[in-house]
């Protein structure tokens, strides 16, 4: 497979469970090592991109460390990077941006699921990455919270423009968020189709009801169904 994500472009990767979309993200983040092929992040291989902190990762599990308060969790990448971070955004300002300004010194277990994921997004942005890697970040949230978080994510992303690559199995979420949706098919995992989302930004709750949105969702749904059908004998 081959694809690229341009600067400040939001690309969503949809596919059925087991098609390898999370693995793909882990390869980009240098959490797993590919057996063959070439991945470049900002023109560098994943391992050196990781060393240069070119990407920030948001996992499905927010992975907040319970022994640190919220602010310390968001500051963790700065602490780990020490002096060699190229650029730093103030963690407190980021907490304000994600709407957790009042919770800087709250304990992580006092936060709701959505708030934890907001903190995780702030943490991923604190080293000003070139690209944000999102692995089903809202997969564990209920539907309403999830939709609110999607709107929030777009608001945050418009304030801190980076490229973004998000893995999700929700077609609606992919279309709502992305400039481009890549459809993956399983066994072997490959990019079966690509759909450019024609929706203008900023996108809001009203976008969800627009004919363009619904049309795009049904096109991607068809592409996904075709991709899965093709694999059946």
């Amino acid at each position: 497979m081959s694809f690229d994500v341009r600067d400040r472009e939001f690309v969503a990767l949809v596919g059925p469970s087991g098609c390898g979309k999370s693995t793909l993200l882990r390869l980009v983040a240098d959490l797993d090592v590919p057996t063959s092929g070439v991945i470049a992040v900002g023109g560098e291989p994943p391992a050196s991109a990781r060393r240069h902190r070119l990407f920030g990762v948001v996992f499905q599990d927010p992975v907040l460390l319970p022994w640190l308060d919220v602010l310390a969790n968001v500051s963790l990448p700065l602490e780990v990077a020490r002096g060699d971070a190229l650029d730093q955004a103030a963690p407190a300002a980021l907490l304000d941006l994600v709407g957790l300004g009042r919770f800087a010194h709250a304990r992580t277990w006092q936060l709701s699921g959505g708030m934890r994921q907001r903190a995780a997004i702030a943490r991923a942005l604190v080293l000003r990455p070139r690209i944000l890697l999102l692995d089903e970040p809202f997969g564990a949230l209920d539907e309403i919270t999830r939709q609110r978080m999607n709107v929030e994510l777009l608001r945050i992303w418009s304030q801190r423009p980076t490229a973004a690559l998000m893995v999700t199995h929700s077609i609606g979420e992919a279309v709502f968020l992305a400039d481009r949706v890549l459809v993956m098919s399983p066994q072997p995992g490959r990019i079966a189709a690509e759909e450019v989302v024609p929706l203008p930004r900023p996108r809001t709750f009203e976008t969800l009801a627009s004919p363009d949105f619904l049309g795009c969702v049904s096109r991607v749904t068809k592409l996904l169904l075709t991709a899965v059908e093709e694999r059946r004998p």
Partner: protein
Amino acid sequence: MKERRDWVWSVIAIAAVVLLWELAERLVAARFPIVPAPSAIAAAIFRFATPIWLNLQLTLVESVIGLVAGSVLGVALAMLFVAVPRAERSLYNLVITVHSIPLVAVAPLLLIWFGVGITAPTIVAGLACFFPMAVNATRGLRAASSSALDLMRALDATPWQTFVRVRLPASLPYLITALKLGAPAAVLGATVGEWLGTAGIGYLLFSSMVNFQIELLWATMVIATAVALAGYLLFVSFERVFLGWTPAARGPQ
């Protein structure tokens, strides 16, 4: 709040047992001095305060040194196990075997090797808390979630940073559990080690028994129990203060 009420109830339960014991003693068993009444034991504690305190000091020193040394060695072994899995596979059964040797059998041996003094009881105390620490620390050092380790890798953390910021904090609840078990075990171990010696709480228990000083025996036993319990409660309060983030320290919600 619920926790506080539980605490009140356990004090009431203990008080009720002591009261019943006292009543039974006065009404029924006054002629059998084998089991003195609680009031008689309390009086004996004051009467024998000086010998108990002198011997207790020694036992405390041995227990504290034993707890510290046994725990440090336990953590060291756990680190070896976690860093070198082959070491765990080859040494684990040996450690279990050593732990299975009854301490009452080890104590006289150590007395023969090291002579009468502080060394033998300290070693027994150390052995008693070494094992819970080794087992718990091994589990604790592996307790960090794979997602937290992924996060540290994505942040390009060095192994040392990952250890200090993730693996070590994640292991602390396990270490404090080992210390809660180890503190009373160290007191027990020191006491067993003093059994055949010439001083300490263990010696006092043994000598009062063979000299048929029943009230001194009970008084010493109550003090030894109180000290072991105090050691346990010390680490419970450590847990409350320093490990407020663990579900255990927060209590039932």
